[in-house]
């Protein structure tokens, strides 16, 4: 009985344990479940859970401070005509040199610069009109101006120009104004420049402009670049000494805070004119199951789950493993190329107060998957995975069916674009939105 012998045995045992003890493998499949397994779990797709879509419209959207404006007229096929008017105030001219004796005014123009955005029929003429404001642009203690803001202006235009614009055109457009207006500015400045209340007096005298279009001619709307120094008044003059010397003088516009876009809906179709305040829900049942997203003018879609309580029964012995909110754009209104790559989903309360975004498991904004059916034009849809949202809702002590979800474009579009998308509601004949719930049921012993 030596020590070596004990070690040898220990080695033998260990080797045996490891070689034999720790291996197992399978090859081939055996599906005998139907004969063998007693399993009461199942997974089912429930696509009959009611969702109610409705259109809502924000009381107002901020249109100032966007570095962009809109001007033109667009006849939205769903809701009717939408007219946009751009407001500008004039900066007070500070350094100013003018030879009162010799300098002669040639003309004065308003220069605006398109930013390339357009909606509507840009192959037709755009008939621009510039009016002088007769009311001071007043923010009324608010930080911004809105699509609903309005200030009165002279009925008679100061200048007009009919232009045919190429799509995507970004060259400045000059609209010649009444020459008298130029003389008025020059005279006023020369006369009052040394007065201590010069600034106040100037603002009172020259309140600003509006740029609008003649809605009887214009069938399109364009975006304007309103970043500083892109829009201006330009005065052309000359002095005749031995030769004629031409002068150009720019009056800058107050673009950052006092420039805004007013959006009017003049001939709104029934029943869209019912959306007179932000708390109103225009149910899909009133709009042929067609609901509107147009962040530019504050439209978004609200989705309610009126029978969410019924899903509580599922919770007892099952789990929603996947809830897909499938939203189908009504392709009668748009082209595939115009489908936005993403749309946003937020929580929304009883009075249409839009709350937080929904997030995915990585903490990013929940974005949908866009599936396009270009071939058959039947099955184009956005699908949001709202599994976590629904499971969380079902964890609430009392499930509040007044809470819903809002679908919108990005807020940056407010006042700068009037792109829109029509989504079919749950009763839409061809483009039906629905909630697909994949539900896993498990047995409990």
């Amino acid at each position, binding site marked *: *009985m030596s020590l070596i012998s004990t070690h040898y045995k220990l080695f033998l045992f260990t080797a045996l344990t490891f070689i034999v*003890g720790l291996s*197992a493998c399978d090859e081939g499949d*055996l599906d005998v479940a139907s004969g063998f397994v007693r399993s009461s779990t199942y997974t089912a*797709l429930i696509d009959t859970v009611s969702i109610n879509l409705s259109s809502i419209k924000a009381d107002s959207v901020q249109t100032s401070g966007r570095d962009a404006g809109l001007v033109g007229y667009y006849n939205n096929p769903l809701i009717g005509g939408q007219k946009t008017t751009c407001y500008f105030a004039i900066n007070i001219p500070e350094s100013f040199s003018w030879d009162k004796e010799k300098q002669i005014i040639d003309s004065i123009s308003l220069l605006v610069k398109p930013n390339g955005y357009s909606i509507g029929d840009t192959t037709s003429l755009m008939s621009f009109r510039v009016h002088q404001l007769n009311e001071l642009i007043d923010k009324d203690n608010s930080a911004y101006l809105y699509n609903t803001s309005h200030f009165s202006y002279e009925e008679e235009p100061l200048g007009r120009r009919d232009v045919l614009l190429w799509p995507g055109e970004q060259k400045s457009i000059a609209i010649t104004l009444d020459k008298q207006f130029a003389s008025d500015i020059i005279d006023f400045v020369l006369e009052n420049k040394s007065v201590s209340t010069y600034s106040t007096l100037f603002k009172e005298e020259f309140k600003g402009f509006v740029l609008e279009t003649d809605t009887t001619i214009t069938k399109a709307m364009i975006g304007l670049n309103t970043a500083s120094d892109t829009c201006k008044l330009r005065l052309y003059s000359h002095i005749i000494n031995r030769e004629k010397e031409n002068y150009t003088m720019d009056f800058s516009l107050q673009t950052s805070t006092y420039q805004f876009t007013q959006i009017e809906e003049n001939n709104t179709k029934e029943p869209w004119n019912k959306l007179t305040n932000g708390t109103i829900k225009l149910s899909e049942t009133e709009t042929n199951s067609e609901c509107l997203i147009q962040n530019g003018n504050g439209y978004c879609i609200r989705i309610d789950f009126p029978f969410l309580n019924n899903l509580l029964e599922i919770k007892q012995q099952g789990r929603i*493993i996947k809830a897909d909110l499938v939203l189908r754009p009504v392709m009668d209104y748009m082209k595939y190329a115009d489908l936005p790559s993403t749309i946003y989903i937020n929580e929304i309360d009883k009075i249409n107060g839009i709350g937080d975004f929904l997030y995915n498991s990585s903490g990013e904004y929940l974005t949908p998957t866009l599936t396009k059916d270009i071939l058959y034009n039947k099955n184009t849809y956005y699908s949001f995975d709202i599994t976590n949202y629904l499971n969380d809702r079902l964890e609430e002590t009392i499930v509040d069916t007044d809470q819903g979800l809002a679908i919108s474009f990005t807020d940056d579009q407010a006042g700068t674009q009037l792109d829109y998308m029509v989504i079919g509601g749950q009763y839409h004949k061809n483009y039906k939105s629905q909630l697909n719930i994949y539900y896993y049921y498990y047995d409990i012993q």
Partner: protein
Amino acid sequence: MIFNKRLIFAICISLLSISAFSQNNTASPYSMYGVGNIEYKGDVINMGMGHTGLALPSSNYINTISAASLSKMDSLTMLFNLQAKASLSTFESSSQKQSNFNSNINGISMAFKVNPNWGMAITISPYSNIGYNIQSEKDMIGTNTTYPVTYTGEGGIYELGWSNGVELFKNFSLGLKSSLLWGNIDIIEKSEYPYILGQTIYNEHSYHVSNFNLEYSFQYYIPIHKYTLSFGGNYMSETSLNTWFKQRVYTDGDYEYYSEKTNADNLFLPTSYGGGIAIQKEQNWIVAFDYHKGDWSNINLANTTNKTRDTQQFNFGIQYSPQRNIHRSIFKRMQYRVGAFYADNYLKIKDVELSEKGITAGFTIPMKNQSLLNFGYEYKVGGSLKNGLVKENFHSIKLGLTFNESWFRKSVFQ
């Protein structure tokens, strides 16, 4: 000093073995019911003889089939046994085939003599095993698609036994084996949703069982000239296993949908008994026959709706030892065995009464100090193709090492 080394050695082996026990020891879809597939007891030597052992003595090995046999051990030795099993199994349904390979530590035991008439053994061995892996699919209701489902069974019941065999009268011994039975039966249903979720849901049912049970045995030896005729028997009363049930429903990301632990209806092991007869001619021949009966039909197993039925088991084996003389060649000193057996399955599945039958063979290579290296082979067929069930066959090899340590014999020279 040497004793300490041996102690460390024993502890190491025990630890290794216990860790290895946790592996799957079987792969049979039939193991999903009741307490799983019940293992044949006994040493590799018993296996070689068709799992007989009720009337066989524990002379130089530990016959764990009969506690009474321990009284026949050599009084100065300490027997140590470790055995491993490897199985290649094939399962066949009417259209599919699956092959599995499993291997594991199959038992560890030690035995020694307390006094000349009293032998004692401590054993750890699997009582039953659960191990299967069935790939299937289910219809997703409301769609025309399916999703993959895998049913997996794991675990088993282990037995820690304390056996005592006492020779009450000359050639008549009584045995008592007190066992702690414990283990887990884990049944996992895995549902996968590759297209809609990208994650997986597990529905796991775990039964945890434990209790003590007692098994009584006897052996009686009648020497007749060159022969020894022996009889043996055993009896185990119905045992209720304290059963806890835990269900968990969770996802791959460890998100728990449901988790509940409850005291479940107990699982039961039936009253079982058996008798054996063996005849031994000098040191050369042993022929043994065992019969076992299990009163399973009284047992209602809470975790299955399948009906139970009484079981019978027949075992037959022969051992031949050409010579014991150490000067002869190794082949002459080896022992050779063959056997056969038949056993009923305790469950009727889909109204089919199942049974298994097999043949065995084995040999022993004697080593120094009366230690033994034992090999056993078994070919077993079971199951049925009736009613959509599965036919199965197994090729199993067991390897056993029995060390005969003379712990109680003092060496003159150290």
